[in-house]
């Protein structure tokens, strides 16, 4: 047998691979190379045998210990005591989690329902207030259906007819700084709905006070929709077509104050006008 020296360069290279060889972690080519070397090198063969013996001694000693049977039984007993529930914890925890889940779902449902209700209510408000804005824009702004010099009161009363003539004074008295130029009953083309329309001028702009019968239309109740309370009347506001509108609901009627004045100004004007106007409408109804 051709015996190589232990310190030879080739042996050193083989030694570096012996750990991986012993663990069967080498590529086939490297394993073949080592096997070829071992065939001719007694020193490396002896070294590998020693390492293999140490590993076998360790394996034998490590597996000689007998695990205690009581420990196994104790573990199996505890496994049965801690049967994981649906969420892996104790039964109490599972119930708590389930309860918390139900509470979250219920609260979430309430919040979602309320949110849908608010959205729907705001849509209704916008739809109702759009009636007043449309009449103001069609009749007063686009139609310019008012004179430059205010029509005399008696003419306006005649145009309003006996049912609504009394409202002229209410509007005139409760719109300080505004002059009633025109008052009539009109309707938007294509619609059978009629409006009592007061066209006023003041603060450098045209402001309309519009009254129409409800005909089933209603403004939603609740603080989430109204802007202010004028007397006992809820005021709603919206901004549409470049106009600010304040709307209210009286017995049998919907009323609107529409102008291009700022929102707060429009609301302040409506705040003063609406309570007496509401009272007058109650009498008419």
């Amino acid at each position, binding site marked *: 047998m051709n015996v190589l020296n232990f310190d030879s360069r080739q042996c050193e290279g083989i030694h570096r691979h012996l750990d991986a060889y012993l*663990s069967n972690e080498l590529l086939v080519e490297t394993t073949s190379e080592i096997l070829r070397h071992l065939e001719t090198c007694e020193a490396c063969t002896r070294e590998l045998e020693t390492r293999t013996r140490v590993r076998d001694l*360790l394996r034998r000693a490590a597996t000689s210990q007998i695990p205690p049977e009581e420990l196994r039984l104790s573990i199996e007993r505890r496994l049965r005591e801690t049967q994981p529930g649906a969420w892996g914890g104790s039964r109490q925890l599972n119930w708590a989690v389930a309860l918390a889940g139900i509470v979250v779902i219920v609260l979430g449902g309430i919040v979602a329902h309320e949110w849908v209700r608010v959205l729907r209510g705001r849509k209704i408000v916008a739809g109702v207030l759009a009636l007043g804005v449309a009449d103001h824009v069609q009749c007063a702004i686009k139609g310019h259906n008012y004179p430059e010099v205010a029509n005399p009161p008696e003419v306006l009363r005649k145009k309003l007819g006996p049912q609504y003539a009394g409202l002229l004074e209410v509007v005139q008295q409760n719109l300080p700084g505004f002059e009633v130029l025109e008052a009539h009953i009109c309707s938007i083309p294509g619609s059978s709905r009629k409006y009592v329309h007061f066209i006023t001028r003041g603060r450098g702009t045209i402001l309309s006070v519009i009254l129409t019968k409800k005909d089933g239309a209603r403004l939603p109740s609740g603080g989430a929709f109204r802007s202010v309370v004028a007397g006992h009347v809820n005021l709603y506001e919206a901004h549409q077509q470049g106009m600010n509108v304040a709307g209210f609901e009286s017995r049998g009627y919907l009323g609107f104050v529409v102008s291009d004045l700022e929102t707060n100004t429009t609301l302040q004007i409506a705040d003063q006008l609406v309570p007496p106007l509401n009272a007058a409408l109650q009498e008419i109804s």
Partner: protein
Amino acid sequence: MFFRPKVRVEDFEATAMVHFPALYRTARLLAQETAEAEDLVQEVYLEAWKSFHRFEAGTNCRAWLFKILFHRLHHFRRRWAKAAKVEAFDKPEDQESIAAEPPVPQEIHDEDVLGALEKVPAEFREVVLLADVQEFSYKEVADTLKLPLGTVMSRLSRGRKLLRRELAEIASSYGIKSAKDQASTGESA
């Protein structure tokens, strides 16, 4: 999934308890005391049981349990704070001293081997146990211990050398000659 499928303790026992001897033996060779090893194994099984719904049937249950074992072991070890430091064996002179490849005697008892193993620092001992006793691949050892592959290889090499040195010392203290020495004595006779 909000709800998990119900798992049966019988299924868990059939899958996991067959590895109880291997887990216990490994834990016993890494823990300081028998009681600590028993606590450790018990915790491993309870933890595995709680997360058994995540275990995929047909995958390597033994590797999964050993991963839990070492996760818990390292947690315990921080509590024990008794394990030897790796740094002490990272010095070049230590590498030189264990690079001498001491011979190992032929006759040596299991208790001596375990005594020698106990003197090997835990960081090396755990790699040697996983690779040489449990026969995990390098990659499985790396996954179990959350170590880079290169670290596993170097720790295994160092651990084996340390064990061999300890065995040689124990044998020497008993007056047992190594196989090489015995061979040379035989030749001279």
